């Protein structure tokens, strides 16, 4: 994900009030789907992901004037999206007064009933395995497995050290492997 130049161009245009909307439109085209899928893998349901992604981009637009270029733009946006996802899941737990396991069970059923899931049996098993993981391990696994992000980048997103991330990731992969093997 070496988009430094393009990100710099987006940020430059965003500073000018005349080209601000154009800059944000470019940002949307470039990162909309990435952010959406990152959210979707966390919340599973399309409608929830739809609402959250919209909220995330509004928040990005509001916060972008204060963005410091010492961080990468996309990791900064991932961080916003991640925080929104965690807030959403925690609120859902509180609202329904259910445990994390129950949330996982509910999301698993939602996945099975979803008309917007087109995976095969193995992919369904993988998603169910992911639902058994703690939020942080799931986040690390998703960013590593699907987005192929480096630990340093994930570290920027989650604000966790690279060593801790490696540990979390290996724990997550071992659990998933065990789940897949057990299911098989």
């Amino acid at each position, binding site marked *: 994900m070496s988009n430094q130049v393009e990100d710099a161009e987006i940020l430059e245009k965003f500073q000018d009030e005349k080209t601000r*909307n154009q800059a*944000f*439109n470019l940002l*949307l*085209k470039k990162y*909309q*789907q990435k952010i*959406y*899928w990152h959210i*979707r*893998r966390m919340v599973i349901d*399309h409608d929830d992901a*739809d609402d959250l*992604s*919209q909220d995330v*981009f*509004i928040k990005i*637009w*509001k916060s972008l004037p204060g963005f410091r270029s010492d961080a990468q733009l996309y990791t900064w946006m991932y961080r916003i999206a991640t925080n929104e996802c965690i807030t959403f899941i925690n609120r859902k737990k509180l609202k329904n007064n259910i445990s994390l396991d129950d949330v996982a069970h509910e999301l698993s059923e939602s996945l099975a009933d979803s008309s*917007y*899931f*087109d*995976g*095969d049996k*193995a*992919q*369904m*098993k*993988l*998603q169910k395995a992911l639902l058994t993981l703690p939020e942080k391990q799931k986040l690390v696994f998703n960013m*590593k*497995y*699907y987005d*192929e992000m*480096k*630990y340093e980048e994930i570290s920027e997103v989650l604000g966790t050290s690279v060593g801790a991330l*490696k540990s979390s990731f290996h724990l997550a*992969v071992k659990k*998933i*492997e065990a789940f*897949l*093997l057990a299911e*098989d």
Partner: protein
Amino acid sequence: MNNELENMEWLDSYEALKRVNRGNAFTVPDNYFQEKEELIMENIRLEQLKYAHPNNGFIVLANYFDELTKNIESRIAIDEVLNAEQGFAVPANYFDELTKNIESRIAIEEALNAESGFTVPANYFDELTKNIESRIAIDEALNTEQGFTVPANYFDELEHKILQSTINTPVRSIQQERGMIRKLWISKSFKYASAACFALVVGTAVMISEFNDTAIHKRSDIHKALSKVSDKDIEIYLQINGDTPAIMENVDPNSLNSLLSDEADQNKTN
């Protein structure tokens, strides 16, 4: 393990996971991202409007909020001063006792109302209502048909006539009403004639009083009584009772003669 292995080749260690298709199993509705992009941009424009017009189009004067803050602080300070120095005070526990007093009064009033002892006949208030309504109906009938009538617009015409004969009549002078008045006493000749007559009357009266001694004698009771006594009786009286030689020595012979002559004249006229 270098970065490449760390990031890309870790999957080789997990056979079951490696067999899973890494492709995206999730789908979205058709044209979702295109429509989503437009929707987000619309929302962004709305947000821009909100930021561009934070007061929803309402405008306030420059420094309004600074002055508003000062005004509010001044008002608070004034209220505090007024409250602190209002001068009114009540005794300690006044309001507690007031509450008790009020409650006692209420209890007494309720007791009195509940056991007032006064009763009215059955259906009294129903009949009272009917009686009042009847009285009102009779009064209304009497007021509307009192028998006396006046011609139509009588009172308007009456008012008009009164106004015509009073306020609307032109004012005539009193002098015109009474005719010509001649003031005689104002003329100088009349004044001189009156003064001359008065002086003549006064002068005549003074003259008569000065030259007529008999008038003086007439006014005295002693003279009147002595004038009726004869001279001879007086001489006899004096010879018997008085000191004649002494009297004769003190009497002025001229005045005695005049007196005697006056007496004689008086007797003649009588």
